[in-house]
């Protein structure tokens, strides 16, 4: 390499070497170092940004909500609570049985239906309806709810979540929605 006059070495940072020739070479090296590190970072960004976007994509999808028919009004007796099964709000073609969802449907009067989420508000386990005792019992950590979904005992922090229900042309429809997540401490 030819000797270059020792000039300003922006970003060099190192103490000026005793031999001018070496100083020039160091400047070049510092530049090449920065170039290489910069290029590697650029490559990482080119590969990494789409990957991160792909992996966190579920965050940016609006939660879909769809009305699902769970039966005819005549199928449900007034005063009874029964489980109904429907397709969840975001079924993928390969989801198989995992695309199913359930709710506890309560017919309170001719026109009044209530649909409770089956997920215990404590940690999401499936609550079971005890028809004689008129209680929902959770199998995991002992949560208990009254027939109106209010907490009766155990660790649940809030009443059972509800789905929207409507009667449409003699059909009972539940609005399938995201699995309710109780957020916050």
């Amino acid at each position: 390499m030819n000797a270059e006059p020792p000039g300003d070495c922006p970003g060099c940072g190192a103490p000026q070497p005793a031999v001018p020739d070496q100083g020039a070479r160091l400047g070049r090296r510092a530049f090449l170092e920065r170039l290489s590190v910069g290029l590697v970072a650029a490559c990482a960004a080119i590969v990494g940004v789409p990957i991160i976007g792909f992996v966190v994509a579920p965050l940016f999808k609006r939660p879909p909500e769809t009305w699902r028919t769970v039966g005819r009004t005549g199928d449900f007796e007034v005063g009874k609570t029964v489980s109904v099964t429907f397709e969840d709000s975001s079924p993928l073609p390969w989801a198989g049985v995992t695309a199913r969802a359930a709710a506890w449907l309560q017919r309170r009067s001719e026109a009044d239906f209530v649909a409770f989420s089956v997920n215990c508000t404590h940690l999401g386990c499936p609550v079971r309806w005890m028809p004689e005792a008129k209680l929902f019992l959770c199998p995991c950590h002992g949560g208990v709810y009254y027939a109106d979904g209010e907490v009766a005992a155990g660790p649940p922090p809030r009443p059972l979540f509800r789905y929207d229900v409507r009667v449409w042309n003699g059909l009972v429809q539940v609005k399938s929605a995201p699995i309710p997540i109780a957020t916050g401490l």
Partner: protein
Amino acid sequence: MKRLLARTWGWLDGRIGLSALIGPSLRHLIPVDARWWYVFGSATLVAFIVQVATGVALAFAYVPSAGQAFDTLRFITNGTPFGNFLRGMHYFGASAMVLMVGAHMVQTFLFGAYKYPREMNWTTGVLLMAFTLVMGFTGQLLRWDQTAAWSVIVAAEQLGRVPLIGGWLAQLTFGGTTLGGATLSRFFVVHVFVMPGLIFLFIGLHLWLVLRHGVSEPPVPGQPVEEATYTKIYEEKLKRTGVPFWPDGAWRDVVFGTALVIVIAVLARFLGPPPVDKPPDPSVLQANPRPDWYLLWYFAVLALIPPRIEGVVMIAAPVLIGGFLFLAPILANQGERHWSRRPWSVGFVILGLATVGSLWLEGARSPWSPNFEAKPLSAATVASKLPPVVAGAQLFYSKACLNCHLIDGFGGRRGPDLTRVGDRLTRADMIIRIMNGGTNMPAFGNDLLPAEVDDLVAFLQSRRIGAEPAGRSVESSARTTPISLPGGRRGNN
């Protein structure tokens, strides 16, 4: 022939440089008295290798599709030669890895091996333990049965409690807003690519640190670690009395590792893997999700912490415990190494083991869960022909009392055992309790007719040693007690 082999090896090794690369590591000096207590680390590695090998084999047939994984698991278990055995190996290999990580950690902690200059050996080890637990949890989910499906939901609900970003974390867990097609793929990737990659990386780092700082010598009381002098003393000692790792130390690792592999294989052959139970259908509500044994203690934690501080505990406890484990070598990286001079450390270990152990036992019993299998009480248990008592016993079953209370060993363990409740409580007490409920007991005031309360109380009063005193008829006493209305709860039935 032998010469040919030797020449071939010599040629290859000359080109590859394998013995030059590994030789010095194998022959590095270790303390002569590092004996059987030092086998747990290599045993963890053995278990991990078993996991990698059997895991790769299982992946030949496993399809990580939410709709099909369960069927492929059935196929692996019942339709392939060795499939059941390999699943068993993978299951007991995981158990072995968790146990060996634990043993390795307790040993290095009690030996003070985390002190100067091996602080980062410990820290990388703590991370490897965390990775191992993540592998255990995600591995259980890949079984993709009913328990797996509910476990994903439980995991998402817990992450949901994290302040500010909880909702996002839950969505990332599901790969959306519901359990479904996107969920399993995520856990598959974590279990098969991300975590193993991290584990490989950190095992490499961990082993490099073992070579760099040497195997710690068994501690001697009264010989504290000092940063200024330790390395010199250690190296001089090694020069004087050290022995090469291969084979003087390694043979014990090989013997113990072999025993471990044999135990894993025997358990896999004779106990087999967890059964392929019910499909992961979230609309089937007859479910009783339980984690595998190595997380059963945490299942108990979630049931036993007071609900009011639950969210804080769920988030803060792992942070605090993790922080403590991380900081241990920084807080006390010098001083005595021998356990007899470190009572606090011994106390921590005993406290930790006792806590996890007792939580584990409680988790296995899970008395807080209602017993859904409870059958109506038999005539022999009721032991009375009086109509109110018989009717009360029937109500005790149908009103779900029996799901949570024991009578003569039948029923649930959520609430108190009521086998002898007639000796403890008066009729008035019972009525108040049934109507109003109490700590962890629902109020039944809205749901029971007065006659039903009478029958229930008659049944409960008959739960006593010896006969009921004459002259205390059911009706008279029930009527003399005012029936209080349930407080704080609006009725709607």
